């Protein structure tokens, strides 16, 4: 690909970008949120029509006008966001658009999917409906979709965001096999460790351009990180270290980690015997007890699909509580409408920010107002005081460094990292008593990740009780004062800072052992 440019209105997503992919290599594509990685790959896959530029395959110029053309050229792509028909079963999603018979064909396809998932360690039940699956399983389906089709060029746009470490290892092993069959892979990720582990060459993008391409052998974690961040990695703070995915786990306390604050006497958040059902009405959280004090960060570890979503939503007052109590500062909120939880000072940063976090078509300003529209500070004579709202939005945009064409731009067009900043800004501006975060740095670049960590620390220092639900053990080890492990909707173990052992936690997460509870 060369000379590729693409603008979306005022946004110049790609400026004369290029990329060269050799046969049989795994090519890493890294860069900050909004650097243009996805756009470039979408152009290659025929989803975006470039303003200019050309694509050559084996030296011959090709015109990719649609994904169909790309598929015919042997290009496959795992998209950054899940693209599934949620009412379809896994096998139906996988075979979409391919040829084959009727129901009989589906049976054969299900067998093939079974084989593929065995071979590549991507366990899914081909017969399950996709909307009943965990995010991780759905991510695996996305990969299976591409593997099922086979391809000469495989584009993986942040395929590991929702995978467990074991699954990542499995995926990498299979990528090796695939590459051995002369297929080329483009691998997009924000995780330095992953990129270094699998890629042969790495291209770094910034501001719609390819900055440089380096050989794997010619770089190391720090070097790559500084390239990605765009500044020399001089400061060796713990945050950067964590962002790099280094250290922390396995080494006990993270280097330079602050001492755990003394456990405050009164717990701000108390959860007793919490029972929550999932969307299908099946209990997903069975009798969880938690207590989080002021200024404490409680980490909740676990493999996706073990009740995290249900727990998070119940703690945020979004999902109905079927049994037990949740109290904030002594007041029981269970059963109350969401707005009462908000009033009690609960703030929630949901996992799926596009779906649950923002009003995509509404402006950034309105998104910042969301949830506070009834608060006195924005009202004058019973009416919304848009001037104040706007003013506040402007200062918030500055304070949280939200990159947007303007306060009136639709939030849905922001890059993922900036959407996350927006969601965090909204949560923090409420001065919450309790903060519930789920996978807050998923898919974020290094800089944004560090930003999130800083904000969490700030909140903790202000006396907020923080519940951090994450699948990323590094992140938990760095931030949490205490980690509980959720397995099958139950708390199966607890560790305090200084006692974090990746191996032991991993076994708890896998449900291999269970501690008395």
């Amino acid at each position, binding site marked *: 690909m060369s000379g590729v440019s693409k603008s979306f209105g005022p946004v110049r997503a790609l400026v004369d970008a290029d990329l060269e992919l050799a046969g049989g290599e795994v090519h890493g594509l890294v860069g900050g949120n909004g650097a243009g990685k996805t756009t470039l790959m979408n152009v290659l896959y025929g989803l975006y029509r470039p303003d200019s530029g050309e694509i050559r395959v084996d030296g011959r110029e090709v015109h990719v006008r649609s994904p169909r053309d790309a598929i015919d050229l042997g290009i496959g792509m795992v998209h950054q966001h899940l693209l599934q028909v949620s009412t379809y079963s896994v096998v139906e999603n996988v075979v*979409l658009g391919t040829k084959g018979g009727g129901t009989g064909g589906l049976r054969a396809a299900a067998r093939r999917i079974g084989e593929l998932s065995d071979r590549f360690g991507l366990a899914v039940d081909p017969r399950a409906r996709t909307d009943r699956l965990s995010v991780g399983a759905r991510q695996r389906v996305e990969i299976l979709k591409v593997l099922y089709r086979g391809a000469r060029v495989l584009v993986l746009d942040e395929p590991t965001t929702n995978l467990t470490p074991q699954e990542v290892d499995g995926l990498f092993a299979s990528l090796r096999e695939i590459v051995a069959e002369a297929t080329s892979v483009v691998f997009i990720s924000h995780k330095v460790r992953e990129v270094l582990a699998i890629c042969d060459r790495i291209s770094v993008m910034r501001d719609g351009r390819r900055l440089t391409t380096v050989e794997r052998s010619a770089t190391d974690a720090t070097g790559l990180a500084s390239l990605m961040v765009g500044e020399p990695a001089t400061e060796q703070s713990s945050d950067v270290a964590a962002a790099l995915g280094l250290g922390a786990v396995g080494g006990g306390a993270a280097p330079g980690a602050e001492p755990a604050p003394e456990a405050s006497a009164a717990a701000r958040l108390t959860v007793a015997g919490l029972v929550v059902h999932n969307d299908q009405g099946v209990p997903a959280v069975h009798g969880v007890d938690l207590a989080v004090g002021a200024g404490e960060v409680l980490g909740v570890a676990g493999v996706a699909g073990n009740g995290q979503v249900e727990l998070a939503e119940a703690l945020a007052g979004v999902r109905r509580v079927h049994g037990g109590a949740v109290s904030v500062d002594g007041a029981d909120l269970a059963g109350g409408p969401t707005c009462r939880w908000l009033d009690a000072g609960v703030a929630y940063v949901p996992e799926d920010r596009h779906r649950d976090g923002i009003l995509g078509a509404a402006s950034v300003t309105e998104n910042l107002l969301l949830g506070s529209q009834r608060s006195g500070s924005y009202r004058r004579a019973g009416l919304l005081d848009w001037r104040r709202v706007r003013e506040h939005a402007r200062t918030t945009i500055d304070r949280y460094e939200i990159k947007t064409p303007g306060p009136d731009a639709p939030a849905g067009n922001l890059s993922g990292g900036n959407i996350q900043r927006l969601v965090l800004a909204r949560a923090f501006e409420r001065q919450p008593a309790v903060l519930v975060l789920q996978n807050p740095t998923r898919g974020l670049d290094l800089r944004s990740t560090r930003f999130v960590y800083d904000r969490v620390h700030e909140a903790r220092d202000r006396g907020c009780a923080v519940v951090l639900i994450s699948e990323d053990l590094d992140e938990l080890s760095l931030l949490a004062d205490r980690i509980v492990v959720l397995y099958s909707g139950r708390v199966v173990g607890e560790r305090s800072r200084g006692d974090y052992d990746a191996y032991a936690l991993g076994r708890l997460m896998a449900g291999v052992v269970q501690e008395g509870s």
Partner: protein
Amino acid sequence: MNEFASLAQLTVVAMVPFLLASLGTMLGGLAGVFSVSQEGVMLLGASVGFLVSYATGSSTVGILLAAAVGAVFGLALGWATTRLRLDQFVVGLALFFAATGLAGLLYRVVIGQTATTPRVDTLPRLEIPLLSDIPVVGRALFSHNLLVYLAALLTVGLWFFLYRTRAGLDLRSVGENPRAADSLGIPVVRTRLWTTAAGGALMGVAGAYLPLVYTGTFTEGIVGGRGWLAIALTFFGGWRPQFIAAGALFFAAMDVIALRAEVVGVGIPTQVLLVVPYVATLLVMIFAFRWARVPAFLGRNYDRESRTA
């Protein structure tokens, strides 16, 4: 028993225009395009179906041309909403107006002002040998005009196509998640175009059914709200052929029963009897709402390069 057979037969005859129009609505809707021009397209189908039958003496030609004109209107909806990405609702209403106007205009141009109503022979009844001799059922099910049998075959055929073939799977994915479909090389635009065209054709035939089965001639009020009802019945049937057929059957049965009560004279005001089918349908919905799901992307245009659409 005999009375039951005759009521059943009337019911079957009455359900067909709803069934055809709803299946047409469903077809486009499963690919994500929501049509609201049924009432107009049906009227146009009735006009064209009648006029062509009248001019050529062949009701087959009339039905085919009604289908063709309906397909053109369906295609117009598909084209305007995929290629130009105009709002589906507004385009549908505009096409409703256009088709309604055109229907009357055509009749005016071809027939003009006459003292006597022109008419054609209605479709003959085709008794299916043997089957039509079965008591009660034979009369109710196997003694009908050709369009009734075709509608039945179509319902089964569509069900099979949509739920038992890969092409059907692909088609439905376009209405559920066009982005996912697109990313797998399923032609979203082309799917929407052909389904709206085919759906329009069905609406056209549903319209032609009215003069060619019920009246033998065209009048302005011949559709009488059946197009709007077809929309409601499509929702009632949860956008699936088998339930749509059930819904159409139920509605028609209620209608025939209410009509029966009126004719027999049960001392209930006409108006009360006339609302029976509508109210009954609503009541059933209270218990049956679970089956009524709607294609996730229904009514929305897909823009490959936009994130907000």
